[in-house]
């Protein structure tokens, strides 16, 4: 099963490579990983998407917790927790005159923003679940997509429960 794991990490050089190294050394999957400093500059917040059986996910969270740089961690996909996930995508598509209306229509339907326009290409900014971003990509044929860039998933628990010190 797919799990989103939120991690508070010491904002130290090398902390990221400890997490990445753990996943490769123990042959765990990483689907995506995002990391940036928090409002407290000594801490980074990482969101990691992985998948595996219940036993593997348990080992993953235990092994992550064991890393000295990991301050705190939450698995957002456990039954007690409801969560929200978001991913951002910038997608650049070919925009010949004949296709522009359709691109704008699609962008509207998916609540995207067109953030760059040139003679032959549009760039759309889109936020949502990974599924939504995938669906948007699927509505174009491969040939018309020039470039996509995705942030990777960020997640947060619903309600007042929060991952902080």
């Amino acid at each position, binding site marked *: 099963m797919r799990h989103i794991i939120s991690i508070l990490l*010491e904002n130290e050089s090398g902390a990221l490579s400890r997490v990445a*190294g753990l996943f490769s050394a123990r042959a765990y999957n990483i689907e995506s990983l995002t990391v940036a400093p928090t409002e407290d500059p000594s801490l980074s917040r990482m969101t990691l998407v992985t998948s595996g059986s219940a*036993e593997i996910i348990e080992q993953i969270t*235990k*092994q992550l917790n*064991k890393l000295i740089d990991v301050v705190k961690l939450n698995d957002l996909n456990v039954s007690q927790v409801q969560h929200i996930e978001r991913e951002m995508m910038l997608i650049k598509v070919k925009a010949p005159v004949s296709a522009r209306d359709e691109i704008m229509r699609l962008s509207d339907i998916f609540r995207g923003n067109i953030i760059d326009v040139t003679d032959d290409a549009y760039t759309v900014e889109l936020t949502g679940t990974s599924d939504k971003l995938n669906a948007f990509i699927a509505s174009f044929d491969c040939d018309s997509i020039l470039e996509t860039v995705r942030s990777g998933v960020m997640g947060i628990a619903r309600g007042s429960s929060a991952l902080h*010190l």
Partner: protein
Amino acid sequence: MELSGAEIIAQFLKDEDVEYLFGYPGGAVLHIYDALMRADSVKHILVRHEQAATHAADGYARSTGRTGVALVTSGPGMTNAVTGIATAYLDSIPLVVLTGQVPTAVIGSDAFQEVDSVGISRPCVKHNFLVKDVKDLAETLKKAFYVASTGRPGPVVVDIPKNITDPNIKVPYTYLPSIEMRSYNPVTKGHPFQIKKALELMLNAKKPVFYTGGGVVLSNASASLRSLVQRLNFPITSTLMGLGAYASSDEQFLGMLGMHGTYEANMAMHDTDVLIAVGARFDDRVTGHLEKFCPDAKIIHIDIDPSSISKTVQVDVPIVGDVDDVLTTMLEILKETASSANDSVVKDEPALKDWWKQIKQWRKKNCLRYNKKTKTIKPQFVIEKLHEITKGDAYVTSDVGQHQMFAAQYYGFDEPRRWVNSGGLGTMGFGLPAAMGVQLAHPDKPVACVTGEGSIQMNIQELATCMQYQLPIKIINLNNRFLGMVRQWQEFFYEGRYAMSYMDSIPDFVKLAESYGHVGMQIDKTSDVEDALKEAFAMKDKLVFIDFITNREENVYPMIAAGKGQHEMELAPDSELV
């Protein structure tokens, strides 16, 4: 106090009460060496190879319970130390390894003797640090010792660029007696509810067995383990790493379990209904085929590291905590429940009696029997005699191979921290340098290094270190002219094709020992074994290298082959059992 980085290191090691520093100099650590010499704060032991520095620090740590400390230079010094760091990591041994690094200004430029030490060591350390500012040095050193020695212990590398130790840059220094880290708070107290639940299960067991490991030794929990096991009158077996935590000579001890464990230990594991795993990590050399492991057992697991629990085998009652703490709590609860200390506390006394009857039946196989009447020397016999002559009171280190298994099976350790070997990584070359650390820590105790002609040659240069520091180690070389353990596997699983497992051009070990200034002996008859050992141990201030020419194709039995269950051991063929 204003000190340079190098002086801080010297002063800190003194303040931290470090007794020995094992190291080897080089460009990146010259400031440190200069400061060490002038401060005269710790005793520095000059090894002959950086791998030996880490193994010696490791041997010191294993035999004392204190943190071992090594110092090596950047680049090749650091890479040479990696095997020792990994060895300590897999056996959870507290080490602090200080590695020199090129100056911060040139890090990343492929400077002379630069390697990414933090990157190279990352997968085999508990944690590592790169010191980027001399102002952080003292605190980082303290953190390193704290992390290495608490929780599940392990090696910590502190990488120190040369400019950080510059003698001309002085900063204030104070020693921090303790430190806190927000991201590191190892649990030591077991959960009371889990402990109660475990006890309940134990008291209702019909066929219980304790399976104990290195965690008991690391936790210094030998005394509480003995009290609990005796209070319950349960059988107990131990992993290779836990030997000595419970006295081997005690009636309740079934011997080692696992691939080369005893028949009774492995059969008890297979048939048990309540397995009490204590500071052991369900290693594949212990479990054999996982699907056949303890098929009928409810499993209790006490371990300080949550990630050890349910890693390979799902357990029923996990208890995260320090072994000594948890066992002591169990003893206290038992004291409250029983009216007198001699009252039986188990619920089904007759079942336990039957269980012991069954175990005695298994014991009758006498699975460690071997033919003692051969003229050529049996390695098992040498170890038994070693026990006899040292009265079981020696510290025994070993290398890796058949000789290691013979030492584990036949020495019979009655005390913890007496048996020092590389179990997890299985590092040939560990034995001699580890023995140096042990001998330094216990100058008045007999120290034996049980080795093979393959392993000893992996760090043979340390004979020079032993001469320099007058370490009277007794090297017991079980010389079968084969990489015996490899040969055994080739005999069993490759139809006897001995690819590269023979030893050719073996040196004359007697002359070799003598050339370093030590005493050498060669013994090739069973009848001479006892006298040779007596003579060697009588030379209390000399290193003696005894080259025992042993039976060439001796095998280690019992053996559980890969893919087999615990009950599917192969025992020595009858022809052997006279």
